[in-house]
């Protein structure tokens, strides 16, 4: 299976999800040339070991600082990887921008709406099925700190796929 990159804005719970996925087998390293740390670990999937990388948080694929530069170059240096895009479910709209940029570059992706409990507390209702239909990729909700939804995420990893941005656009506009 492909290498997995965990991407998303800063402070959406990427590392919490990373820890849930990989357990304690973590290798921490410095990305060459910068002082930004990243962490990689391994996930057991159907008796195979899959590499998972906890990429530094970034708002977009146009880097504005060193950490974002690392995030973007990690994505671009791993063209054949699969991306788990993590969004704060209570701030979903602004996270979708990054997801769409990742999809546009052709990476197979799966969307995780983390902090689902926070969204519920704020009375934010999200139609997962509709979001899945529009985006054309699997969408799962998680509460990483309690571990809820992580199993679902792991089972849906295989369904991650590349989709065309034009298709998403036409579904958003109701043409499909």
């Amino acid at each position, binding site marked *: 299976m492909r290498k997995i990159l965990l991407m998303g804005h800063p402070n959406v719970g990427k590392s919490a999800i990373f820890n849930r996925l990989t357990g304690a087998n973590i290798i921490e390293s410095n990305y060459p040339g910068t002082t930004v740390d990243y962490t990689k670990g391994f996930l057991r999937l159907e008796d195979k070991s899959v590499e998972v990388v906890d990429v530094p948080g970034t708002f*977009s694929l*146009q880097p504005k600082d060193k950490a974002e530069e690392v995030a973007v170059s990690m994505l671009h240096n791993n063209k054949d990887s699969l991306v788990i895009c993590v969004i704060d479910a209570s*701030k979903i709209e*602004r996270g979708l*921008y*990054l997801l769409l940029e990742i999809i546009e570059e052709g990476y197979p992706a799966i969307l995780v709406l983390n902090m689902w409990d926070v969204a519920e507390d704020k009375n934010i209702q999200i139609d997962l099925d509709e979001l899945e239909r529009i985006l054309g990729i699997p969408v799962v909700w998680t509460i990483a700190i309690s571990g809820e939804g992580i199993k679902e995420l792991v089972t849906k990893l295989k369904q991650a796929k590349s989709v065309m941005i034009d298709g998403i656009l036409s579904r958003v506009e109701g043409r499909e």
Partner: protein
Amino acid sequence: MKKRLSELSCGESGFIIDIAEDIKQKIAGMGVRVGKELKVISKQPLKGPIVVMIDESKTSLSQKIADKIAVEIKE
């Protein structure tokens, strides 16, 4: 009434009607886009950054950037 974001005072809100081309891409990822509603949460002294609330999330913008964002003030 149309104002620059840098001219808004604390507590004022409005809709973004224009963003200068050179910064559009830079701030789009943070959710700052034309059509969005925003509210000024705080302004820092000595030409410090302006903190705005957009879609449940706070973003701080420098004066330089705030100068290039046009806002239609909500009455």
